[in-house]
């Protein structure tokens, strides 16, 4: 497939994953703020923008509704949901012939929904519903992508974008929460601490899945284990990395061009880090630097994919 097209599909998918992540984390954070006994609104807000990255221009000013509106609707700020939805649609528009009509219509509807008068009105009257409808729109798009598109190279690039973005976002989220939660020795849970832990799990839609695996007995160590090392839960980093590995493998098999050794090596290393480690080893060593390494390696995967599939030199291609 055309390199430019692959790049657009990849970014379309990354932007949508990011939009969903932002909407969900905002929703959870605002929910937590209803119980002011835990952390202050300001700390929660900083945690939120920290885990979303790009916090410049999003500093806490005391007016929660205005801040939240900015984070959703300010199309000029790169952290906002609208910015991401615009980015996704702009990328989709450039590869309109590659995606299915259903995908395009779904995404287009989401775009028009974000830009309608109604969206702001709904947001003012019920923030929860407003964010839920955005998330629904993105879920629908993902479902439609999986059911209406050939699962060939294009779809693999979409998958690659989704899981790379998700792995990176989950690692960032854990890194931000880690000083507050993970390093505190396990104590008798006050109700507030329980809420905090539920918040962390909800930020990655993993509360119910966690309970299913470990019961509602929340402990920081287990949460970390679940979000890092679970092989079956789609928001766990290990699951994301396995998907990335699988996609790169399938892209190679349909295309016939071997990925560069370094790409195989970095993905293999990530896979091994998550597949052959126990949580006690991670906690005994340095959880923070473990998370940091994962983020760095994800960045490296992104760069290598870009230079191999999208922006390669003509000389190297002619020789091959």
């Amino acid at each position, binding site marked *: 497939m055309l390199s*430019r097209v692959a790049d657009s599909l990849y970014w379309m998918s990354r932007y949508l994953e990011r939009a969903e992540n932002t909407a969900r984390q905002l929703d959870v954070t605002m929910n937590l703020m209803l119980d002011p006994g835990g952390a202050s609104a300001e700390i929660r807000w900083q945690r939120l923008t920290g885990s979303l990255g790009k916090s410049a221009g999003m500093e806490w000013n005391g007016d929660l509704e205005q801040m939240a509106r900015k984070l959703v609707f300010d199309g000029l700020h790169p952290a906002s949901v609208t910015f991401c939805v615009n980015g996704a649609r702009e990328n989709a*528009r450039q590869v309109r*012939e590659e995606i299915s009509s259903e995908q395009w*219509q779904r995404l*287009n509807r989401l775009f028009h929904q974000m830009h309608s008068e109604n969206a702001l009105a709904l947001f003012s009257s019920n923030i929860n519903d407003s964010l839920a409808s955005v998330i629904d729109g993105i879920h629908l798009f993902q479902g439609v992508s999986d059911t209406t598109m050939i699962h060939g190279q294009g779809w693999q*690039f979409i998958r690659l974008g989704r899981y790379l973005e998700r792995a990176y976002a989950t690692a960032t989220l854990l890194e931000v929460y880690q000083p507050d939660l993970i390093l505190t020795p396990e104590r008798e849970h006050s109700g507030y601490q329980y809420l905090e832990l539920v918040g962390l799990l909800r930020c990655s839609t993993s509360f119910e899945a966690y309970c299913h695996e470990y019961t509602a007995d929340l402990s920081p160590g287990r949460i970390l284990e679940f979000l890092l090392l679970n092989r079956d839960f789609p928001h766990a980093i290990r699951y994301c990395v396995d998907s990335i590995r699988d996609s790169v493998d399938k892209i190679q098999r349909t295309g016939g*061009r071997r990925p560069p050794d370094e790409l195989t090596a970095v993905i293999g290393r990530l896979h091994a880090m998550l597949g052959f480690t126990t949580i006690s080893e991670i906690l005994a060593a340095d959880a923070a630097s473990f998370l940091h390494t994962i983020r760095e390696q994800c960045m490296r995967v992104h760069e290598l994919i870009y230079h191999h*599939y999208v922006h390669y030199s003509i000389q190297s291609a002619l020789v091959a």
Partner: protein
Amino acid sequence: MSAGHPVEMETLFGDYALDRAFDEMREADGQVRPHYRALAETLARLPQDELQRRKQSADLSFLTQGITFTVYGRDEGTERIFPYDLLPRLVTAQEWDRIERGLTQRITALNLFLRDVYSEARILSDRVVPRDLVYSCKHYRRQMRGLQVPRNVYIAVVGSDLLRLNTGEFVVLEDNLRVPSGVSYMLTNRRVMKRTFPQLFSSYGVRPIEHYPQLLLATLRSLAPEGRPVPNIVLLTPGVFNSAYFEHTYLARQMGIDLVEGRDLVTHDNIVYMRTTDGLKRVDVIYRRVDDDFSDPLVFRADSSLGCSGLFNAYRAGNVTVTNAFGTGLADDKALYAYVPRIIRYYLNEDAILPNVETYLMTDEKERRHVLANLDKLVVKAVGESGGYGMLIGPHSTARQREEFARQIEANPRNYIAQPTLDFSRAPCLINNRLEPRHVDLRPYVLFGDKVNIVPGGLTRVALERGSLVVNSSQGGGSKDTWVLEQ
């Protein structure tokens, strides 16, 4: 008119006034033409809000499908849905037959003309067309001289604009031989109409047009370079900011070919490649939706990055087919247009089946004086422009505009032509829940590969403003579906 619904018909027509222009639906005495009766009766039977409801549901369908176009000269990248009218324009089998024969003849002759001008130029030696007119045309490309074009087809994709005069006769207003657009609206209009009026559609016996993309693909394939049995065909677009971008993506998807931009292409040793995730892949046929000027910075405009450096040399070497060929704009120059009947006679020894509109050449002293004296009655057009830009419509102009045009004509007579202001035909449109007549033209799409192919239909463009004569989408025009009837 059916006697069963006199009252409804009365409300339907309201103050639908006939004037000198031919009315597609009604005879001069107000009677509904036989082939429009079923439509009129259906409309009369529908409850008041029903039409409006169907219109809204069709609107929404256009918007979510992203069937939009970009308007230049306003906020960059403003997207709008292409305005369209819910009522079909009907063309009888007999009328269509004449159109089809006329266009086939015309395109065949124009293609022979291009081939001749870019090789021996016999028509110029024989003084049928003046030499200066050809060599002063801004779309003449001297780079094309002596170049062998695959199958001698210069114009594979054409969209000619037809008007219907008050005699009921169709005439050709202009030929679009460079990169005609609008065919995607023809196809999507049809899809929406089938959903909006399913029963009416099936009762009418309308000839299908849906196979256009397949015909286009077959045309492109037939023009592939020798020795490339499974050609890689691509559609070259200027990119997402082009007004017809929706159409480019639509056609590429319908044909199942890659949509490429200039930046996706590279040339090496006179072979064109596209950059793919699997490395470089050779390109054999390019259906080009980029103007000549922007196609190759090494040969045409050096400041453009929309095309691909080295494309023209690869084309010259016969390693890639680019269609339409370069330099075809010569034959749709509005001044050369006046010579088309003579061109048809010269090459085919036939009379033109579809007549031209009377055209005054400003290079002719006598005609120029006549035009300058009658600017308020005529339409003046810049020869190299399209899309309704660079035009003066005399009866609707101000004295100031006329002075401005007079000055420009004097300064550069070769750049302008004039034509009488035509009372071209009007068709009923749904305006605020009532029927009102609006001026319409017709742009059928012609494909030319192994042979000339015209899908029965085309884009009927509508001047949606009352009394307006401008149908271009960039100037407030819209479209409606065109139903060519089986009989």
